[in-house]
Each structure stands twice: as structure tokens, then as C-alpha cells.
């Protein structure tokens, strides 16, 4: 019988050995595939066992995202808390269980959970695991200035709109607010409350990076750049303004106040921008052709997603939209070149821009024509305080020559000194700016703009402000807000 017993022993042990093989398959071979599956609830929960890194504003003290420890059934979980609530909600985003993640909480998740593959982080988390301590994620230090964010939000209070500020020489995003903002602490349990419209606008929508608006006269900075770059015009070129421009045989009138359309007579290029004369820009547009203007816009970053560390679906592309589809004309005749030149367009070829794109335009002029890649994550810092990565400023390309940039700066300074943008004047500081008052389909309901940078001779900050549904002009509505933001950012 003993031979049979030995054989049965072999059978029994082979069966058990098969279990070791099976376990090895699931834990070594298939483990990563299992972890990536959508319905893996354990992985979803496991995210909450990690002490996520904190997110700090540029001062290194203001905590934008923090953790609260909670014990659930003997399990220690870390949930997100946003102590500053709506201060930078659209950039920071949220990390929840039921609504997943948004903003930097989504895109920087690997860093925040310590699952990035930088050697130092891998060693840290491995030691944490071996010691049995909670895995700690890396902290993010942002470029956002908490004080200026708060001032911008306050200034935008009661209005729907956005403000973006960029450091021209580096591309650092100093301010990015979307009004109304929302309280990210409510997303998990009180989503309806967090998403409830305020002042008639949805608060979750990130107007600063996703909002597409008609630029109006703020777009003239781009047209002026294209005109100067073409060599056909100089800063001293003279124009005659009859108060309108003829396009397709029709009159396109200047901006009208209660006295009817303004008429300026003979002006030079600077004065044309200073007073934002549509008729002059209309004629320039007809001379250059729409394609040329849009080529210039493309060099400023139009027709591509504005770079930033937030999720790509939380940023929108600026450009001409034809029935809500991005469209680059093959022929000048496919766009209304005259209207395009002053930032308006018919419905079938509508020029639409995001606030961050317009801030990039201002920053590029301020930076001598070089487009800097905007960024918001300054440093990733390991739990022990060492730097994991540091963002280096990066040039995206040249939009205009240094001479053109200098000329446009001079022209934009005139706007603030004696033109439509006097509300943005700062004592003792040279400010360059451009107003925009875009008509919408409703009469007397405008989208108002102000883009600017300062100090003009050594720019430290470039700002774009947009306001929805205004009855007044960009110079009276948006420029004062831009001024407050500049004041907050300049030393």
C-alpha cells in the first residue's frame, strides 16, 4: 500500500504547489494589469490610504490642499480638505471618491501619491512600506500667489468672468481665478450645492483656461503685431478714419456712444490703438488678409491647447470657430478679415479666445516677443523636504521680433496713458494695456476685456481679465480689476 500512499502524497502536494503557482501568477505576473482595471474598487480605496502630498501656494505657507485623517472600520483613510476653499479651486481641482479627480489633483496624482518613478520617491515609499508606516506623497509648490488670487476673486465678486496673471519672463502662472468659484470641500457629499449656479453662472466651469470668449478690441494687439511684422505698416503709419470702414460694400462702424459712432479723422497707428479705432483696424485687416492675422495669432499660441499642468480637457483652444469647430481658413475669403482685425466675427467664423491665451499674448509682448510656456507647478517636494523636480522656464518660440514687441509696448502704453485704458494707471509705474469690448448677440450686453503688463520697461506681470454680460466697456469694467491684480503682484 505504501507505494500508493506515496503517489497520493505526490498528488496532494502537486495540488498544493499549484496554488503557489496560481498565487504567484496573480501577485507577480498579473498584478499590474489588475491594478489598472476600471472596476478595481480596492485600488480606488487604496488611494485614500496614502497620505497625499499637500499643495502649497507660492509663499510656501498657504495650504491649498491638505488631508484629514479618518478611521473607517479600523482602516486609516486620508481624505482631502481644501482649507482655502474656492481660492484656487479650478487649478487645484479635487480628489474624491464619487466624483473622481479634477485639476492638479488629477494630473499630478502620481506625485501626490508618491507613485511617480523618480528614484528618490521609489526608495522613500519602499522604506515606508517596509517600516509599515503610511506612504506619504510628495508636496506640490505652485506658482500661484495666494494674496493676489484672493484680491482677484474679490474684485470679480458678483460678476462672471476670469482673471489670469503670468510672469512674462518665465511663464509662471501667478493668478488664475474663475468667477464664480466653488468650494471643493463640498464636491464629495454636497455636489449639488457645490455646482449650484451663482450670479447666473455655473461655478465648476474654469473660465480662465476653458472659457472661450469673443476678444473684441483686445485682439487688436495681435492685429497690430501682424501689421508691424508684415513690414507694410510702422508705428508712425497714418490712417484716415471716416468713422467706418467699407467691407463687402457695407459700412462697418466704429464703437458708438450716445453721440453715435466716433470719428477721429487722420490718426497714426499708435493713436489708432490708443483709441481703439475699429475702422482703421478693419482696413489693416483687409490689407493683411485674415490668414495673415491668424498666422500671427498661431505664433502667440492660438490653435493649440494652452500649455499647463492641469488636465488637457480643462483647457480650451483659442482660434476661429466655425459652428463650434476649430477652423483655420484656407482662403482669406473664408473669414471676415476686416471684423477679425478688431476681434469680432460673424457666427460662421467666430474668433474665440481663452483668458489664459490673452494673458500669454500680453506676456509675450512684455517678454520681447518670446512665448514662454505657462506653468503652475514650481516644485515637487518629497516628504523629507528634498526637491523631486523643479520646473525650468521654457521658451515655446518667437511670436514677434523684439522691435515689434517694443513698438506694440509703446502703443499699449499710450492706451493706458491717454486712451481707453486710463483706469489701469498705476502711480509711478508704466503700464501697457489694451481694452476690449466685444459685442454679443444680445444688444448692450458685452464681453469686456483688459489685457496689460507692467512695468513696461521691465515687465514683472502680465494680466488678462474678462467679464461676461457687461453693459459698459472693458476700460471701465475690466481695467480697474486688472489694476488691482497688478498692484497686488508688483512689489
Amino acid at each position: 500500500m505504501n507505494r500508493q500512499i506515496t503517489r497520493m502524497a505526490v498528488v496532494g502536494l502537486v495540488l498544493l504547489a499549484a496554488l503557489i503557482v496560481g498565487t504567484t501568477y496573480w501577485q507577480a505576473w498579473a498584478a499590474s494589469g489588475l491594478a489598472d482595471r476600471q472596476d478595481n474598487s480596492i485600488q480606488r480605496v487604496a488611494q485614500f490610504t496614502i497620505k497625499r502630498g499637500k499643495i502649497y501656494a507660492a509663499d510656501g505657507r498657504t495650504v491649498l490642499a491638505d488631508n484629514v485623517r479618518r478611521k473607517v472600520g479600523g482602516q486609516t483613510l486620508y481624505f482631502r480638505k481644501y482649507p482655502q476653499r474656492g481660492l484656487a479651486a479650478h487649478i487645484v481641482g479635487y480628489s474624491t471618491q464619487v466624483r473622481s479627480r479634477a485639476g492638479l489633483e488629477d494630473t499630478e496624482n502620481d506625485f501626490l501619491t508618491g507613485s511617480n518613478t523618480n528614484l528618490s520617491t521609489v526608495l522613500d515609499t519602499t522604506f515606508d512600506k517596509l517600516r509599515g508606516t503610511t506612504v506619504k506623497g510628495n508636496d506640490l509648490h505652485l506658482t500661484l500667489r495666494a494674496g493676489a488670487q484672493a484680491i482677484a476673486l474679490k474684485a470679480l465678486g458678483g460678476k462672471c468672468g476670469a482673471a489670469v496673471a503670468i510672469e512674462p519672463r518665465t511663464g509662471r502662472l501667478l493668478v488664475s481665478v474663475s468667477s464664480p468659484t466653488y468650494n471643493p470641500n463640498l464636491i464629495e457629499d454636497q455636489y449639488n450645492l457645490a455646482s449650484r449656479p451663482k450670479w447666473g453662472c455655473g461655478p465648476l466651469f474654469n473660465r480662465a483656461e476653458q472659457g472661450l470668449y469673443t476678444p473684441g478690441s483686445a485682439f487688436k494687439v495681435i492685429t497690430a503685431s501682424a501689421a508691424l511684422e508684415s513690414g507694410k505698416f510702422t508705428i508712425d503709419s497714418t490712417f484716415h478714419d471716416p468713422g467706418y470702414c467699407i467691407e463687402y460694400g457695407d459700412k462697418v462702424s466704429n464703437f458708438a456712444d450716445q453721440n453715435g459712432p466716433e470719428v477721429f479723422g487722420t490718426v497714426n497707428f499708435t493713436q489708432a490703438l490708443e483709441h481703439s479705432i475699429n475702422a482703421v483696424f478693419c482696413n489693416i485687416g483687409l490689407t493683411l488678409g485674415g490668414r495673415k492675422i491668424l498666422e500671427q495669432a498661431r505664433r502667440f499660441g492660438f490653435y493649440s491647447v494652452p500649455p499647463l499642468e492641469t488636465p488637457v480637457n480643462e483647457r480650451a483652444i483659442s482660434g476661429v470657430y466655425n459652428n463650434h469647430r476649430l477652423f483655420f481658413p484656407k482662403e482669406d475669403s473664408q473669414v471676415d478679415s476686416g471684423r477679425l482685425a478688431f476681434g469680432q466675427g460673424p457666427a460662421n467664423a467666430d474668433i474665440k479666445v481663452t483668458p489664459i491665451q490673452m494673458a500669454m499674448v500680453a506676456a509675450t509682448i512684455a517678454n520681447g516677443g518670446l512665448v514662454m510656456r505657462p506653468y503652475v507647478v514650481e516644485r515637487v517636494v518629497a516628504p523629507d523636504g528634498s526637491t523631486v523636480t523643479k520646473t525650468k522656464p521654457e521658451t515655446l518660440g518667437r511670436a514677434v521680433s523684439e522691435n515689434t514687441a517694443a513698438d506694440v509696448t509703446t502703443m499699449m502704453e499710450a492706451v493706458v496713458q491717454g486712451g481707453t485704458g486710463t483706469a489701469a494707471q498705476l502711480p509711478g509705474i508704466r503700464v501697457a494695456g489694451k481694452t476690449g469690448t466685444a459685442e454679443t448677440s444680445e444688444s448692450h450686453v458685452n464681453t469686456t476685456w483688459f489685457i496689460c503688463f507692467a512695468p513696461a520697461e521691465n515687465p514683472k506681470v502680465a494680466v488678462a481679465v474678462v467679464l461676461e454680460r457687461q453693459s459698459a466697456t472693458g476700460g471701465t469694467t475690466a481695467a480697474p480689476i486688472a489694476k488691482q491684480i497688478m498692484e497686488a503682484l508688483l512689489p
Partner: protein
Amino acid sequence: MSYRNRELANLFVVAIITGLGFASVYIARSDIVSTGSLSYALFFFALYLVAHVIARLAVPQADPYLLPMAALLTAIGVTEIYRLDPGNAFRQGLWIVVGVAAFAVTLLALRHDYRRLESYKYIFGLTAVGLLFLPALPVIGEQINGARLWVHVGSIQFQPGELAKIMLIVFLAGYLREKREVLAQGRLKDFGPLLAIWGAAMLVIVETNDLGSALLYYGIFLAVLYVATARAWYAAAGLVLFVGGSGLLYHFVPRVQERVSIWIDPWSHATTSGYQITQSLYSIGNGGFDGKGLGKGVFATTNGHTLIPQLNTDFIYSALAQELGLIGSAALLLLYMLFCLRGFRIALLAQDGFSKLLAVGLTFGFALQTFIIVGGVLRIIPLTGITLPFVSYGGSSVVANFILLAGLLLVSHRANSVAQLPMGGDR
């Protein structure tokens, strides 16, 4: 060192491991090492000390490794059950006390000669069949998770199948010891009982809706039959019959069909019937090589809802695999292999046919049960709900396995005592 001193030394090691295990769970759950963790370990040690003393009295020459290994397995089980739900761990602790009591009673009652059980083989056989059909009875029978394996009396529910398994093994050992020569001749008329048992196994599937227990009883039967008759083709024919029979039943029993289709592609049922197995696989995968650590695994949603149903019974292995990782689960499986090795060794050393068949039946049953449940969890075979011996939460299982352990020790003691007589001396 004598057998029992060796056993005592091993139990000390187990006590230390148990203390460490409880301490880690305590630290993970409450960030403190409370005396509670140590009292659990001390209680455990004291309990096994009692078992040891009884073994010293009743079976001094028995294998010294089985009791410490069983102790370690129950300790691993209680630690994980405690980690999942402290209340259940307390109940499981009580069941282990009952198990040790059953162990003591079995040893003391049969210490002179367990072989007299052979004369009661038919009583055992009939009782086993009776027990197996208990869950099918209207009032006390209970269907849990689609399988009729439970009996409900008052507030106590138990799986009679666990006890029936051991009785069936006693019956098989006795019956086949007696009929082995006759059966080995291979006359057709002698196959009556074999076919009857095959029929019974099929009936059990239909009755309990459970492929796993049928496979277990039938597998034990084939193993003992093979060892008794030395006819490999009996076992092969029996296996073919079983596969054929289950193949046929597959078409008639919807639950078996469902189980098989979940087994083939759990992910297409991931939100419904395949939820349990897929989440269990995620749990195992999440353990990775080194595991999350005791008390650090994820078994609940952020609201505290359990992610995997039946985690502390059928799926205790996937909980352990997540927290202990590949290293820990492989160690656990090696422990089962060692237990079986000692069991088969006892069968080899036993002097008489009944003892050999009994030891083989008990050991192979233990191995096969481990394979069926862990293999089901690992998707090697279709999943069926039976317990992981000594580890799963559940009273009937713990008590039955302690009786199984007592049986192996009884056989071992006798084999070693007889073997020692001519040689003398202590080993």
C-alpha cells in the same frame, strides 16, 4: 529530545509568531500595542498548552509537528479574522476552545485503540449520509449564497458536511480495508458500491447545489479506493465518471452553469455574479510580492462597506494574500504542504490497513479541501464555498479539523509505539 518536548518547543515558537501577528494588527488598527494583543496570544498559548498536555497523556509517541502547525494555522486565521472584525475573532476563539475540547475528547476516548471504530463503520457511513442531507430538510436547512450547506438550529448554524467528511473517511477506511481484495479482482458485480457512491456524490451536487463539496467527498473516496486496491484505473474511471456526470449536470443545474461561466470569464460578470471573484482577485493582486502588511490591506470602501462578501470564510485566503503578499501566502501554503507531508508520513509508518487508509483519507481530504477553496479563489477551478481548514471563520470547520488532527495523532502514536518496540530507546 522526546516527541512531546519537541512539540512544546514548537508551540513556543508559534506563540511568539502569534504575539507578533496580533501586535502588528493592533498597531495598524489603533497605533498602539495594547496588552489586549498579548492577552490574545497568551490565551492562545495556554489553550494549546492544554492540548499539548492531553497529547502528552494520551498519545506521547505521536508526531510532534502536527499540533504546532495546526496551532499556527488557527493563529493566522484568528489574527486575520480579528483584523477584519474583532467580534468574529472572539467567537472564533470560542470555537477553537470547543475544537480543542473535541480534540481532547477524541484523544482520551480512543487512546487505547482507535481501531475499534472499524467495527462501527456502517454507523459512521450512514450517519455521514444523514448529515449530508440535513441541509436539504425544510425547517432547519438553510441556503446561503445559493448553496445548501447549512443547518440552522436556534441561533447556532453549522455545516454538517464538515463532520460528515470525517465520518465518511472512517467508513471508507473500514469498508475498503475489508473489501480491498475483493475489489482488486475487478469483477463487475463488485462495482456496485462504487457506482452507488458516485450516484450519491451526484445527488449531493443536485441537493446542495454545490460542486465543491461533492468534488471533495468524491476525491477522498477515489484516493482511498486507489490506495486500498492499488488499481489506478479505478481512480481514473471514477474521475471520468465524475467529470462526465458533472458535465451532464452542468446542463441541468443552473447554479453550476453560472459558476462555470463566472470561472471562464469573471470580468464579463464583474458587476453582478462575478463581483466577488473579481474583487477577490484585485485583493490578491494588490498584495503583490511583499503584501500590504497585517492590518494595512483594503477590504472596505471609504464608507466602511465591505468590498468582498464572505471575506472571513470562503475568501479568507484573498484577505491574507493582500496583507501578507506572495511571501506570506506561499509560506501559508507551504505550511499546508508540511502538514500534509506529516500526514502522509503517518500513513506510510502505520502498520495496519485501516490505519493507513484512515491517515491517507484524512490527509488527502485536508489537502484536497485546501486546494478546492484556494484554487477556487485563485480561479484555477470554479469557485465553491468551502472553508480553508483551521483558518476560515466558522465553528463546524474548526471543530471538524481538530477531530481530524486528533485522528492523525492517534494513528501516529500507534505507529510510532509499535515501531519503537523492537528497537527500544527514545528518539
